[in-house]
């Protein structure tokens, strides 16, 4: 009971918190559910992506404003055109709520609409009221405005969509309309093969670069043929040239080849993306000039048009890149990331650890070690004090993102962490970690996600049967808090109130959480072990209390399966991403997202918070990784180079590096500072589902469907990093194939795919997966 004497304040506070939680349990859940059922009421007139809720993030008003301006500047007329068309389409299908939401989320400038619509004020206020009836009533008025504005904006900006000007009823067709221009389809193969011949005839150094043009050209020509109903020509064209394309586009080509009718193009999101986003190529100036000259000499307008309209050519000065350099970076759905996309400054440094007094630490240990002996008062030493050093120049300011105050329990946990850290094993090539494997047995329901708490005391599994199960890994059993009625009976002043509130009858090794209505694909513990997040196919993210083992909140916003979710390392915030291609940042006490990160062209498959909580990384099945600034919602990094959907991400503990694993079985290492790839770890033979750095970042562990855990020498990979200014400036990677040198070990499991990895605080590696005999 010495503990209790030592922390009277802490106990009280904690107890109070729990009381509150237990008392409001029923009511709270109900209220939240109720809110969730309603669609998000439109909150502000700007209706920006970064709908700031007046939450903790509002501590930085200037940044939020800048985000707004940023977004609206991005809303080029062309995009708006698209949006309006989509709105029109939604209206046609009587999806009024979606219209409302889309309009709000896309930040369609209300004022521009107001200019056109006569009844703007009424509609505007109605929309803002957000009740279902009002929205329904307004819909027609609203949409008529949309139509009007569309027509006029089409007239205003004829350069962007020349054909749209002719139509008075814009439709999804507008989006595809650029394909409607006529050209002799018979000549497409001629054009293409002409270009091919040219590119094959140029000097070797240019050939690799110019060959990048093949794929986007091929796709656009094919789509154009399909769009113009030249079905057989399209098929012939595809058959003839599909073999020329790089193998890593195989998946996309497969989708493409299945498409042979104009009607099919409409519903196909992949293609709409291809059409609306420009394919990015990096080409040296010399090569580009060569291409341009050739096309102009040949009067090859068809190809030139496509290049102008659908390709973004990022021209750089200097030596053309080699084939291997190009291959390392390409492979994503929409080409490489633009160089300027990775120019923004990223504060990747770590936040300064809060100073924690350790007044009771020594006493504790003594009490444990030398029981009965009289305590000697040692001079109090502040173990944190020695650690506090100068602010990392790359670190964001401590308050850049408002973080929750540390509770006493958090401080206690930090102290525990420090203690454990002193017993940590230094890992290295000669000192590899031991591996413990947690096998899920009898998981007929299909294990889909696993997470450990940071202190490795709990393990949770998400299952395909919609359940979430939590196990205690330590001998300490899981107990619920007593019911509200019983809590009234206990003595709140007693020292062991924390013990007393727990219901001993409920003690068990595991608990099952019911609530989802679809497979649970993502799962994440809060750092303080009080909460658990789960994301599911049913489109919700749920927050569970690990004190009561009940659901506290269901966050609704993703209307499609949510593939992954991850708690911020500082708690409170979390990120989720799913099939709707939008990553959302939430705070646990807000039922609406604080930020929405949109830009991925396909499903977001995995999400991860940066150790300093200022950034989030998202991996997608468009084969790119994006890094987003939590503060303003901007995309600050785009990493391309994977050839398959990305399913695992891990930040190095110092925040400088990012590792990513994909279905292509490769792990890529990224330098966040300059946005460059600096390592490629080849070895796995199947999808990589988990990545984790050891606590000091010396070892990278990767777990895969091929039933192996592999350990990589991360330190060596970082050291080999050559950071001369030239490479950083040009953005060219020089990868050496040193996977074999970096591979420290391959550890095979027994028919158990490794779907989660975790380093304990002492650097023991835990792996988890379900046994599939």
């Amino acid at each position, binding site marked *: 009971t010495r503990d209790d004497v030592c922390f009277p304040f802490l106990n009280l506070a904690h107890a109070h918190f729990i009381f509150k939680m237990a008392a409001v349990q029923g009511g709270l859940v109900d209220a939240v559910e109720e809110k969730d059922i309603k669609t998000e009421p439109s909150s502000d007139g700007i209706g920006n992506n970064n709908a700031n809720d007046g939450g903790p993030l509002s501590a930085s008003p200037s940044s939020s404003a800048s985000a707004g301006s940023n977004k609206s500047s991005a809303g080029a007329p062309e995009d708006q055109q698209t949006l309006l068309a989509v709105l029109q389409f939604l209206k046609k299908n009587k999806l009024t709520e979606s219209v409302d939401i889309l309009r709000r989320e896309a930040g369609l400038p209300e004022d521009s609409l107001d200019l056109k619509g006569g009844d703007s004020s009424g509609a505007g206020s109605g929309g803002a009221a957000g009740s279902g009836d009002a929205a329904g009533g307004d819909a027609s008025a609203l949409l008529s405005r949309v139509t009007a504005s569309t027509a006029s904006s089409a007239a205003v900006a004829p350069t962007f969509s020349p054909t749209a000007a002719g139509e008075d009823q814009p439709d999804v067709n507008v989006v595809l309309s650029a394909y409607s221009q006529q050209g002799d389809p018979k000549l497409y193969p001629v054009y293409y093969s002409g270009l091919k011949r040219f590119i094959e005839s140029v000097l070797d150094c240019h050939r690799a670069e110019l060959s990048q043009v093949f794929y986007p050209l091929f796709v656009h020509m094919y789509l154009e043929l399909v769009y113009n109903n030249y079905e057989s020509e399209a098929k012939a064209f595809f058959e003839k040239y599909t073999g020329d394309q790089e193998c890593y586009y195989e998946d996309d080509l497969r989708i493409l*080849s299945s498409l042979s*009718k104009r009607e099919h193009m409409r519903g196909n999101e992949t293609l709409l993306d291809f059409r609306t986003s420009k394919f990015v190529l990096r080409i040296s100036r010399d090569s580009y000039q060569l291409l341009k000259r050739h096309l102009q000499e040949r009067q090859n307008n068809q190809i030139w048009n496509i290049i102008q309209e659908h390709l973004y050519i990022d021209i750089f000065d200097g030596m053309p890149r080699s084939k291997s350099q190009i291959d390392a970076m390409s492979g994503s759905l929409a080409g490489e990331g633009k160089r300027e996309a990775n120019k923004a400054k990223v504060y990747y440094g770590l936040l300064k650890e809060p100073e924690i007094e350790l007044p009771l630490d020594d006493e504790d240990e003594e009490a444990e070690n030398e029981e009965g002996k009289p305590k000697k008062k040692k001079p109090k030493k502040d173990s944190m004090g020695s650690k506090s050093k100068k602010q990392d120049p790359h670190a964001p300011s401590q308050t850049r993102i408002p973080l929750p105050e540390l509770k006493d329990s958090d401080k206690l946990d930090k102290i525990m962490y420090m203690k454990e850290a002193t017993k940590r094993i230094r890992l290295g090539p000669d000192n590899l970690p031991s591996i413990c494997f947690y096998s899920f047995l009898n998981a007929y329901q299909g294990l889909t996600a696993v997470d450990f708490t940071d202190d490795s005391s709990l393990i949770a599994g998400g299952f395909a049967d919609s359940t979430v199960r939590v196990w205690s890994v330590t001998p300490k059993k899981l107990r619920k808090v007593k019911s509200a009625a019983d809590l009234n009976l206990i003595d709140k002043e007693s020292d062991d109130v924390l013990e007393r509130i727990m219901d001993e009858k409920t003690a068990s090794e595991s608990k099952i959480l019911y609530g989802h209505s679809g497979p649970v694909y993502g799962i994440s513990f809060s750092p303080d072990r009080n909460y658990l997040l789960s994301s599911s196919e049913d489109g919700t993210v749920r927050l569970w209390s690990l004190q009561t083992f009940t659901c506290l909140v269901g966050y609704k916003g993703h209307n499609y399966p949510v593939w992954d979710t991850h708690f911020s390392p500082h708690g409170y915030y979390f990120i989720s991403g799913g099939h709707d291609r939008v990553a959302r940042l939430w705070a646990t006490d807000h039922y609406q997202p604080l930020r929405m990160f949109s830009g991925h062209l396909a499903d977001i498959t995995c999400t991860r918070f940066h150790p300093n909580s200022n950034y989030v990384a998202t991996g997608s099945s468009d084969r790119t990784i994006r890094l987003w600034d939590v503060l303003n919602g901007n995309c600050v990094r785009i990493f391309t180079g994977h050839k398959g959907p990305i399913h695992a991400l891990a930040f190095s503990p110092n925040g400088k590096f990012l590792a990513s694993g994909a279905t292509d079985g490769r792990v890529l290492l990224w330098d966040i500072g300059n946005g460059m790839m600096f390592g490629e770890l080849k070895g796995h033979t199947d999808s990589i589902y988990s990545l984790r750095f050891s606590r000091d970042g010396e070892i990278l562990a990767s777990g895969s469907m091929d039933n192996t855990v592999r350990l990589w020498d991360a330190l060596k990979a970082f050291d080999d990093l050559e950071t001369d200014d030239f490479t950083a400036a040009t953005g060219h990677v020089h990868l050496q194939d040193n996977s074999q040198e970096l591979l420290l070990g391959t550890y095979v499991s027994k028919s158990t*795919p490794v779907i989660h990895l975790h380093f304990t605080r002492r650097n023991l590696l835990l792996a988890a997966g379900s046994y599939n005999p």
Partner: protein
Amino acid sequence: MARRRFAEVSRESVKLMAESAGAELGDDVAALLAEDVCYRLREATQSSSQFMRHAKRRKLTVEDFNRALRWSNVEAVCGYGAQDALPFRPAKEGELFFIEDRDINLVELALATNIPKGCAETMVRVNVSYLDGKGNLEPQGTVPSAVQSLSDDLLKYYQQITRAILGEDPHLMKVALLDLQSNSKIAALLPYFVYVISGVKSVSHDLEQLNRLLHMVKSLVQNPYLYLGSYVRSLVSSVMYCILEPLAASINPLNDHWTLRDYAALLLTGLYHQILLSLQKVLSDPVRPLCSHYGAVVGSTLWGGRCAVERVLFPHLPAYWANLQAVLDDYSVSNAQVKADGHKVYGAILVAVERLLKMKALSQPADGGSSGQPGSAVGVVGYRVSSPGLSPPPEPLSEAALGIASHLQAGGAGCPWEEWTPVPLPAMYCELYSFFGDSLAVRFSTGPGFGSYPPCPPSQLGDARKEPCGPASNPDTARKMPQLTANLNISPRQDGSPRTDPPPPSLASTGPGRSLARSSSSSSSSSSVQRSKSSLSRSGQRPAGPSRDVFPKARFTSPQTGLPVFSFLIGGRQRGRRCKLPVIGRVGKPVRRWACSHYSLHLPL
């Protein structure tokens, strides 16, 4: 012809489905619909694979597909959610494939006394797999220290024997080895002997000693009372050492270490065959439980490789099949457990033979069959898919009579497999197809490329295997040789008469040269081919020459281009509102109208 890499639903199938729903469709409408169905199907498959990936599985389930359908606002397909795969069977009588959907005897089920227990609770178990990055398993290849305390007699025996074998006296050595070969009471000493043998590494300079140790291995192997068990590994490593290492003794060119290596290699085959034999013994023992059979099948697949499957499993298959079929067809509740075991064995055999077929195909690209390279299969379209008739089961090799270690007696020359002759791929495929039907994932065309292969292995087969490749040699079955590639979209329309199949092209033309002389001299089998040729109507429109020119290039595409293929069928004209496909298993005559389509859904996994 376009390369069909994807699912194609034929127009006929669409029309059939429409008819069963009571609508008549025109050809053009059906064609349009068929194309749209294909597209939607592919789209749904693409998106279902995403659910599979996120569920961290390798196997696409019906549930995944249904989720994809649901998210695209399409009604889900109900009734196929079972975890275990549904058996997909050919009907023997007709060219018909169906999913087995048996009646369940509810009464029996309800009154059954063995009520299955609920499924076990999901749990997490932890084990330290690798300590400090090293496996915590005992290091491989070591011999455990004394397993049991030895009696004084045994100890004495051990000392005497080792002394005799490693000693000077050749006669004594011979006696010792003979005793080692026949003594029935030395099981307890086995670890010690194995340990002694593992001493090869320390005497690598002494050729004589090495020789003796190897003889000791031979004696141990031949001792019928010894079960080598896990010591085989250690023995193998010792023998391998003699085979592979640059022995110290070989520095001196006078030393005849070559003989040693030969001898060691021979021993190794002895060990290999010993395992093969014991596998085969188990498999051919009907009294053994199914799990033992499973072990034997898996063992020969994974351990023995192609050779083992081909020699152990394949010849025994017809005999074994009958037993297995009986087990699988017994649907009574009391048989449930046995039946489940039977399915395991079935699955194992299936995997084994598929591997065998694949490897065989890859290993003889020059004279094997043709591949599923649709683009090049010019004249093949007219072929029809048919379920193969029952070919006369080849007689299993008669090896049972041979003793366990008899193969070593003649210095390796008496290997019982000496008389074994490889079965040609087409024949093997036909036979296997008759057992497995479309469950076989490996498909081969039996087009001209196949036909030109000698239908029967050379005459030395003789009596050991009468007509082992019946399907190829007999006109009736030759026609039924399955013709399954992605391109073969067979519809009833295309072949008004099912007998139009082109015969196997003449042997005299471009078949691999080696077959010619022998096959003409061989007895009935090849002449029956000749007859079959004449008896069949030739589809003359197909120029034989060019197609044959095309084939050699296209045979057996490399694995990365060979897409997984499966075929399915929408069958039966359904009157009224019966929603089930006709139950065909017990129908005497196959249903008249049907359409068969070939599918190759390639999923990005």
